């Protein structure tokens, strides 16, 4: 059963560009290239402030809480999961309706996915809320942290009523989400423990997305240790592994010429983390715009400029009727890494109202060939606009 307005939402978010973004379309993937208008703007020099920035920024057009995790069960079988909460403002701040019952200015969309082997289960939820109201069908809270839609939620495990507890409530989270489906249902109940600091990308949290300067506020928590239970097709297993949470908000994320992106988050075996993305189109000379962050095991970020990242698709697979690159060469000369990043399972299409590809990847040294033992790391790859 799919909500009927999938197409309507597409139209809303794609601003008329259809499922496959047409090259001449000005608004970028999922309408993220729409001009910011009367919304607040992400600018170089905006400072990150915690814990406030963990919660929603309703004055900005779009925002997300984006968790991916590379896990394994007791027998070592790998398993991936994703949980994302998207927020979209329905109106600019000065056009908000009065907060009568049901009146809404925010639209929420949540995605969850669990993958193991060739199995990939996806679910999607929608909700409305008014930014003047707390405790609606969907929403967020900064302290103690909580983000939810219906019974899907990512919330702090720190008891806020315990006044003695002065810990960062964001450092210990609980993720709960379950979905019934015809395969017996899937979902997870996991504890997340931060083993490193929050990492601000770009210029102290301002991540430029195109040559002409617009971008988003962007920070991550790439150091999650995760433990708990994952259910897939009715079968529940104990799992553990590593996770990565992205927080990003903006009013115009993409240049209007940019049609999609390829985004990598990698946990390397030596404790480093690497975030790298390229926005296709909108680069300095009309080419791709690349950016990334090299993160030390202690969490010190090094911002990587457009010229410091090499990304080359090596092989692609047809997934759901689209040609999707599933094998990449990823080079960061400055960090001395040259990796082959490959998705072991190509069937990770998110058949949601805004469709995209999101799945686990394995990174190897470029000179290691196919030798699985020479694995350099694991992570997640997201590709949009295909």
């Amino acid at each position, binding site marked *: *059963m*799919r*909500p*009927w*307005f*999938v*197409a*309507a*939402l597409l*139209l*809303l978010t794609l601003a008329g560009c259809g499922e496959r973004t047409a090259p001449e379309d000005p608004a970028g993937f999922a309408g993220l290239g729409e001009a910011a208008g009367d919304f607040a703007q992400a600018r170089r020099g905006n400072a990150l402030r915690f814990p406030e920035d963990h919660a929603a920024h309703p004055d900005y057009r779009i925002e997300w809480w984006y968790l991916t995790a590379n896990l394994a069960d007791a027998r070592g079988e790998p398993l991936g999961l994703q949980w994302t909460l998207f927020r979209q403002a*329905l*109106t600019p701040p000065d056009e908000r*309706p009065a907060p*009568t*019952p*049901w*009146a*809404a*200015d925010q*639209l929420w969309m949540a995605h969850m996915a669990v993958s193991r082997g060739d199995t990939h289960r996806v679910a999607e939820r*929608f*909700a*409305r809320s008014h930014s003047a109201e707390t*405790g*609606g*069908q969907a929403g967020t809270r900064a302290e103690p942290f909580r983000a*939810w839609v*219906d*019974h899907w939620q990512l919330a702090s495990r720190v008891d806020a009523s315990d006044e003695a507890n002065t810990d960062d409530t964001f450092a210990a989270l609980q993720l709960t989400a*379950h979905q*019934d489906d015809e395969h017996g249902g899937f979902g997870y109940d996991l504890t997340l423990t931060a083993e490193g600091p929050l990492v601000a990308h770009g210029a102290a949290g301002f991540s430029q997305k195109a040559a002409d300067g617009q971008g988003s506020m962007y920070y991550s928590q790439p150091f999650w240790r995760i433990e708990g239970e994952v259910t897939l097709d009715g079968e529940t297993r104990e799992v553990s592994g590593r996770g990565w949470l992205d927080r990003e908000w903006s009013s115009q994320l993409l240049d209007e010429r940019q049609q999609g992106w390829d985004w990598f988050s990698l946990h390397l075996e030596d404790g480093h983390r690497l975030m790298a993305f390229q926005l296709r189109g909108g680069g300095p000379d009309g080419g791709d715009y690349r950016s990334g962050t090299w993160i030390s095991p202690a969490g010190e970020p090094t911002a990587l400029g457009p010229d410091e990242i090499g990304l080359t698709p090596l092989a692609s697979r047809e997934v759901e009727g689209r040609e999707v690159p599933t094998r990449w060469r990823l080079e960061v000369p400055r960090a001395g890494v040259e990796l082959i990043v490959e998705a072991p399972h190509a069937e990770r299409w998110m058949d949601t109202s805004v469709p995209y590809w999101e799945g686990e990847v394995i990174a190897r040294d470029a000179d290691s060939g196919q030798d699985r033992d020479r694995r350099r790391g694991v992570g997640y790859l997201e590709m949009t606009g295909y």
Partner: protein
Amino acid sequence: MLTALATLLSHYRRHPGQLAMLLLGLWVAGALWSGVQAINASARDSYSRAEALFTTGLDRLERRDGEPLTRDDYLRLRRAGLPVSPLLEGSLEGLDGTQLTVIGIDPLTLPGDNAFAAASRQGELTAFLTPPWQTRVAPDTLPSLGVNARQAHGAEPRLAEGRLPPLMPSPTLPPGTLVMDIAAAARLLDSGERITRLVSAPGMLERAPEGLVLTRAATLVSPGQLTESFHLNLTAMALLALVVGLFIVQAALGLALEQRLGMLRTLRALGVSGRGLVGLLALELALLGLVGAVAGIVSGVWLASLLLPDVAATLGSLYGAEVAVTLNLPWHYWLGGLAVTLGGLLLAGSGVLWRAARLSVLGLGQAQAWRSGFLRQLRGMALAGGGVTALGLVLWAWLSRQPPGEGLVAGFGLIAALLLASALWLPPLLALALAGLGRLVRRHPLAQWALADLQLQLPRLALAMMALLIALAANLGVSSMVGGFRLTFLDWLDQRLVADYYLRPAPEQFDTVQAWLAERPEVAELLPTRHAEATLVEIDGPDGLRAPHLPVGLYGITPGESLIPSWPLLATRAGRDAAWQAFAAGEAAFVNEQLAIDQRLEPGDRLTLTAPAGQETLTVAAVYPDYGNPRGEVLLATPRLAERFAAAPSSIGLVLAAEADEAALRDALRRRFALGGDALVDQREVKRMSVEIFERTFTITRALSALTLGVAALALLASLLAQARERRRQLAPLWALGVPRARLVTIQLAQLGGMALSVGALALPLGALLALGLVAVINVAAFGWRLPLHVFPGDLAVTLATAMGVALAAAALPATRLWRTPPRALLAEESGT
């Protein structure tokens, strides 16, 4: 070629009657068929629009105590992970006084695949969700908002409750419905945090959450499903009319060909090829067909617009299905109507084309060969009749092995086979009878001549007589069925409605009202009822266990001294008294006939039903008739139902004491409890409404069967008119031989009257069989109840009289003409000078 076509058509200039008859046949056939199809198409359009909406197809949750749900209830359930969506419903009065339903939805959580979805596909969600919002409304509702279609988009009509959000016409919405975002609806209806109900995709909720009642979508049978049999009925009647109309066409075409054989031969001799000739005839057919079909469709639509309000009222009252009273016809309707009429014409004309194709240039044959040709035709008819009978028998054998209530289409097939076989056998039978009678009256030359002459006319009259037979039988069958149903239904109403008043207090008042009433001297007995929903999970019968998983309604009645003696039971395990004893004791339940037939239940079977506290098992003590109810129901004693199924109170029946002051009681009730206007219903009012609904249900059936009879009469008249000229030529020598004209006219009338009477006599058993088929097969399959077969002697007499009347009315015109023809003219035709 054009010359040849003009030559062919010149025939009709000489014989405008034949042309008129051809067009009349096509017109009548097309009009009735397309009229009914227009009704069906319009109704289906309304259903699909209604089904598109949220009232059917979704499971619903309401509070057990009847109080409204609130936004908090919704949020609580969502946070518990239940996939529910809020729905706010209210009514507004349109500018023209019509009731409009406002439905507020949350498109973000509303389960998918309804047509509102389709309607919104191009719409922008933001515009729907944010001020000033949008009002989605069907174009046929615009007049109630005082807006015309051209200005509709974006208009903001002001009603008593306030200004509506800008209109957005959506043709897929049902009539009289305004759909908008729940925020806009809440503002318009000033409903605050309240919502009407929660809906959920079918089967997504395993059980009702605490304090709520879950009504499964499966129990809210969609109007399309419910009314399917009704429309099948209409279609069958329309098909009958079409066939009867095509009989006329076939007769006219045959005649026109016969009279043009000479012309065709001449054209062949002059060098028109055989294939060219057939082509020309086909072209002629197509031209005539187009004219007739277009006229038919246009009048059909007119007919439909006349009948539609009645049909809409029927469907509304019988099934609660909203049907627009204005026609709404999709493009394929027009094309389909044209195709069916032209297809029928081609079928009727294929024989003519075939004969024209085999026409020999030199053959004189036709005149000499007609006798053997007709005999061959009779043999063919008898054979075909035998074949159709065999088919009917096969269907019957198949049906008799099906469980009751199955095979609606096969049932109609059986009835069609019965009618067709009888029609096919009619001419051979009549020919045999005429030959036999002719032998008996050798000594009476005029009688002998009359019979022999009738045999001669038979090929011409056969089709009209077949049409008459079918129409008469259908008429008799339908009137027997309706009459029988009426008797049974009225009886049943009397038995079921034992209380003088029915009171429907608000749920929270129920107990107080009941206690207050119990103290009143005017009241002899109180009959409280309750209602719950459950799923029938298991049946333990003689043939073992079955697990149907069927939603059923549970009704509680009060088995007291008023109810027990009159409540009708169809089957019991150990007699009426034992059944009622077990029922009153709470050990046993009754099931309605629909459920019994559907699930093959018999008294003694044990039913396991879902209940709030697990499952409850009940023994079926009896089956009761429940006419007019589309659903399966289980009946229990009210206290038992309340206790075991936590059933909500529904109504209280008031049996008044003799000489009670009704008005005083009514006033006291109203004053004491501030009851709404419709909370107290007079039993007579219920009966009146039920009877009215009943009458409406069959208005259209009766209208159609009468129209079919009219068509048959036209067929006969047309046949007689078409052969009138030839008849006079045959009568002239007799007149010259010394038979007075008055005698000739009398003989003519006697001939036709006699034949029609025989046809009428044959129609009697056929009509009775038809009625049997309707009550024993069609009704059971369509509605789920069986009726006793009633044959009314009055109906039989009416059928015979109708047959005679139709024949004499049809014969009157040619006979008057014969009477008025001056002898000189008769002679002129006769001698050709």
